[in-house]
């Protein structure tokens, strides 16, 4: 297939052929103005210059709405909303394990009063915690009293914390005014379809107005309510993110239609997530063998939807009681027993001072990236590749290879470094002894990457990575990610030019499905 034909497939959202994209396009449509959209930003990674000031002000400290912010700011969820009003085939409410990390899962539910105490305890311990979300473990709007009582208490005691919620949308139109009254200015709606025939394969039933609806009727009701709710929110200037679960063979191609439908109704950000499905979760999809997408399939779909709409690629599909930066989970530090025993000293000034420091770090990071980017000016190459980064946050390469619980993935081209995703991995290093099977898992998770950037790496994994065709890079330890990645890429291009190395296209990678070890 010619380059222009590839381009057409990638940029015509009406008819994306994922398989074709997968097989023929090793280099995906990146950020920039390709696709004729005229939008020169890099998805939700877009910085201040790409967004209107009022929107930037709303998202700049929100890790779930800004890729850039998620390196610096933390969020927490409080599990005050256990009830749900719909059933999804990828969700099983019976399964609950502290070592499991995925939506709908929670270790203990809280009363609004306990939740308010917890928020204060976390905000005092983690000054970069800027966002409080209610995401279940059921649906916040199926528990409106508990949800809004929690918001009320937190707005009183910690007024600087942003409030947000994540809903399936069924009850949303009934609560839009209340949401606006509580100054909730970020709402996420999970929309997996706009075609009830497809919806019937995802949702066995919905409960609405004292009746259980099933099949196409249920899905029609749900999609109508979701889209109405979305329109009502955006009409009030409330920022909306749409989450979609990519279910291969069911809604993967259809999500392009969903993208168009939500974009036209004013959604700000679209987050396409891979289906999490393992038999041990006991979900319908887990039990019937429905697979999740591969890393390339997910990226191809995200790329094909990235027109005039921001795509979120940094979602960690976290628990409904998660605490911390998106890549970490510190919920075990804040169990009800522990927070009730904690002496909480909520000091707004300390939080402000800490956040001012974070802002300085952030500005330095962006400046370093810009500076390095200038050295790429004049380079002409079609090469685009992925690299994995071990980081603990702050936009730095500051994690040991063996300690990394996840790798962030950047796409490098002469256009710069673009965040395109992350891969969760089991802890490779446990007690300092390398474990061969864990290393194999890590390699499968980043198999589509040409290099992995780490703060430190042992000799054994280093040679195994090289054998697998992934270059371990440790000379940028504790430096900024994007600046370092661009510098390495420039050197890579030089090495290719000099004939020292040959650029080879990498294969696909695995998205982790099983239960995760949440050792903090």
């Amino acid at each position, binding site marked *: 297939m010619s380059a222009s034909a590839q381009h057409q497939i990638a940029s015509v959202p009406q008819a994306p052929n994922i398989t074709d994209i997968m097989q023929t396009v090793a280099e995906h449509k990146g950020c920039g103005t390709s696709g004729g959209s005229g939008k020169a930003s890099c998805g939700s990674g877009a910085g201040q210059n790409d967004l209107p000031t009022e929107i930037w002000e709303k998202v700049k400290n929100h890790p779930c709405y800004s890729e850039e912010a998620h390196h610096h700011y933390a969020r927490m969820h409080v599990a005050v909303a*256990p*009830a*749900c*009003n719909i*059933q999804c085939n990828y969700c099983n*409410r*019976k399964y*609950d394990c502290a070592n499991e990390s995925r939506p709908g899962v929670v270790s203990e*539910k809280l009363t609004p009063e306990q939740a308010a105490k917890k928020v204060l305890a976390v905000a005092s311990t983690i000054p970069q915690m800027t966002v409080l979300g209610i995401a279940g*473990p*059921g649906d916040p709007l*199926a*528990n409106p009293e508990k949800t809004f009582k929690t918001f009320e208490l937190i707005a009183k005691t910690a007024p600087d914390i942003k409030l947000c919620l994540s809903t399936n949308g069924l009850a949303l139109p009934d609560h839009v005014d209340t949401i606006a009254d509580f100054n909730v200015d970020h709402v996420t709606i999970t929309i997996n379809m706009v075609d009830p025939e497809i919806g019937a394969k995802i949702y066995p039933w919905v*409960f609405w107005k*004292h*009746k*259980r609806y099933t099949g196409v009727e249920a899905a029609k009701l749900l999609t109508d309510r979701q889209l109405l709710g979305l329109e009502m929110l955006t009409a009030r200037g409330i920022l909306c993110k749409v989450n979609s679960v990519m279910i291969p063979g069911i809604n993967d191609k259809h999500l392009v239609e969903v993208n168009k439908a939500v974009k036209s109704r004013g959604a700000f950000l679209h987050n396409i997530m891979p289906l999490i499905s393992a038999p041990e979760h006991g979900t319908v999809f887990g039990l019937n063998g429905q697979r999740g997408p591969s890393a390339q399939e997910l990226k191809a779909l995200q790329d094909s939807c990235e027109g005039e709409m921001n795509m979120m690629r940094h979602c960690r599909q976290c628990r409904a009681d998660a605490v911390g930066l998106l890549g970490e989970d510190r919920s075990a530090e804040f169990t009800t027993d522990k927070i009730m025993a904690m002496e909480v000293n909520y000091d707004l000034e300390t939080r402000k001072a800490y956040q001012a420091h974070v802002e300085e770090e952030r500005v330095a990071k962006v400046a370093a990236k810009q500076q390095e980017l200038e050295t790429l000016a004049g380079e002409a190459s079609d090469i685009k590749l992925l690299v994995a980064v071990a980081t603990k946050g702050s936009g730095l390469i500051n994690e040991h290879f063996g300690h990394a619980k996840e790798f962030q993935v950047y796409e490098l081209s002469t256009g710069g470094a673009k965040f395109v995703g992350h891969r969760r991995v089991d802890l490779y290093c446990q007690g300092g002894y390398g474990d061969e099977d864990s290393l194999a898992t890590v390699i499968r998770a980043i198999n589509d990457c040409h290099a992995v950037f780490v703060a430190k790496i042992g000799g054994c994994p280093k040679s195994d990575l090289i054998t697998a065709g992934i270059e371990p890079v440790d000379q940028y330890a504790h430096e900024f990610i994007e600046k370092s990645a661009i510098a390495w890429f420039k050197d890579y291009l030089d090495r290719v030019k000099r004939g020292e190395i040959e650029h080879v296209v990498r294969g696909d990678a695995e998205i982790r499905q099983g239960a995760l070890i949440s050792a903090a």
Partner: protein
Amino acid sequence: MALKIIASQCTSCSACEPECPNVAITEKNGTFVIDPKKCTECIGHYDVPQCAAVCPVDNTCVIDTSFPRYQPPA
């Protein structure tokens, strides 16, 4: 008859509690229970028992045959 909740299957999600027109459902020892004296099987209120319709686990809110069928007042 009244409905009962199979405790071993209850996820304690609380969805049933506010749906009950008779306020017959309360939380007890981590799961929810139906007071058979208050339960009317939703007769006279709705077409179907609300707890069973909203419960996320199939066959968890079920008819308890040890109680006589609810008789609505004439």
